[in-house]
């Protein structure tokens, strides 16, 4: 595994802006690292749901990365994964209560996927690969960048799926009453189609840029 090691090397020398921005583009958790596929595929059937799962994941990622970074000296290496999961699970439960208190409807729409943020490998991955080796400030910036990249990816899927599958954006009809919705787009297969097309676009853009550099 030469690539992650190389990027880790780069990360340690990166400036704050790079720490934040790499989550959006270069190391986007969804489009580049293909992490957290379960919520990305399952609950991005509308813009509102995509935004809610993106923000909830970002909130959990930010808090758990900060705590993991703060406690890196206190947690023995042997029990670090168990400790990270405990920390992440606590913040997920906190998020679930807060969301339920804020909006009963959104909580109902997201169902079990809020609780499943616990097993989103993006969050455990950032705790292990970044937060536990960097200062609090950097860990928080990294978490914000990764969270923003994740939210952006969810929104990219959610807006396309809602537009084609329901003829609306964030609940507002776009195409008028004569539009026949492309229902498969808001069903599970649509998630794979749309994700595949976004990955195609992302990889094509990256290859083109790399070719230009050479």
């Amino acid at each position, binding site marked *: 595994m030469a690539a992650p090691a190389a990027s880790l090397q780069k990360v340690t020398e990166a400036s704050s802006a790079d720490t934040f921005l790499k989550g959006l583009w270069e190391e986007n958790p969804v489009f580049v690292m293909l992490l957290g596929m379960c919520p990305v595929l399952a609950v991005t*059937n509308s813009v509102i749901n995509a935004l809610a799962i993106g923000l909830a994941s970002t909130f959990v990622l930010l808090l758990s990365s900060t705590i993991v970074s703060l*406690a890196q000296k*206190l*947690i*023995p*290496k*042997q*029990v670090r994964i*168990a*400790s990270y999961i*405990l*920390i992440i*699970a*606590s913040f997920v*439960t*906190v998020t679930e*209560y*807060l969301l*339920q*208190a*804020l*909006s*009963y*409807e959104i909580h*109902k729409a997201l169902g079990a996927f809020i609780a499943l943020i616990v097993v989103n490998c993006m969050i455990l991955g950032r705790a292990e690969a970044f937060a536990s080796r960097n200062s609090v400030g950097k860990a928080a910036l990294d978490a914000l960048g990764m969270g923003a990249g994740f939210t952006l990816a969810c929104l990219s899927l959610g807006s396309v799926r809602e537009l084609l*599958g*329901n003829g609306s954006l964030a609940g507002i009809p776009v195409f008028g009453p004569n539009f026949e*919705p492309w*229902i498969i787009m*808001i*069903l599970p297969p649509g998630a794979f189609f749309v994700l595949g097309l976004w990955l195609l676009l992302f990889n094509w853009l990256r290859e083109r840029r790399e070719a230009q550099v050479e």
Partner: protein
Amino acid sequence: MPAAEQVSSARMVMAMAGIGILSGILLVATYIGTLPAIERNKAAALERAIFDVIPGGASKVTFARDGEKLRPLAEGEAAAVRYHAAYDEDGALAGVAIEAQGQGFADVLKVLYGYSPDCRCIVGFKVLESKETPGLGDKIETDSAFTANFEALDVSLDESGGAIANPIVFAKPGQKSQAWQIEGITGATISSKAVTRILHESTADVVIFLERNLQVLRDGSSSSLVAKSN
């Protein structure tokens, strides 16, 4: 990664226990802090649904069913079977909201419907919980032609008062001819049949029971438990 230095088991246990205790405190604090808001949200959602299925409702009293008797429930009191009576501005009984459930196409369908003793018909219908297929089965919530079935769905009792004269039945799309038929939706046949079955089974028992206890329901508006809509 360099080999981790030897750490005593006691330190590992202490680290885990420390995180566990802090997590526990955090969770309890959040739970206590958000509980009032969560309960308020749930009650508000149910209240909105009740006034949705009973046009003209302005205040409500929730009753519990104990065998063949009805009694008003105090706020926050739980009961296995609940009926929500809604009253209009003048305190007259506008209708009763009844919760019912049954197997849908995917998972259990939970619905709420409004019964009006004045027209002896169902005057409103709302899906509380469903996992029906988006775009197909969930038309039972969104299709205006389907929801129009529940503007005045006849469930009047026969002469003996012991059974519904014409139990609710399913009609194919475009073939509804009687006031007690539910016209199905093309593309959501199973879901609309499920709704028909749920209402058929629920009304067969509940409507007779409510008609027998109508006086208790009518008197409910003078009780101290009336909750105004807001």
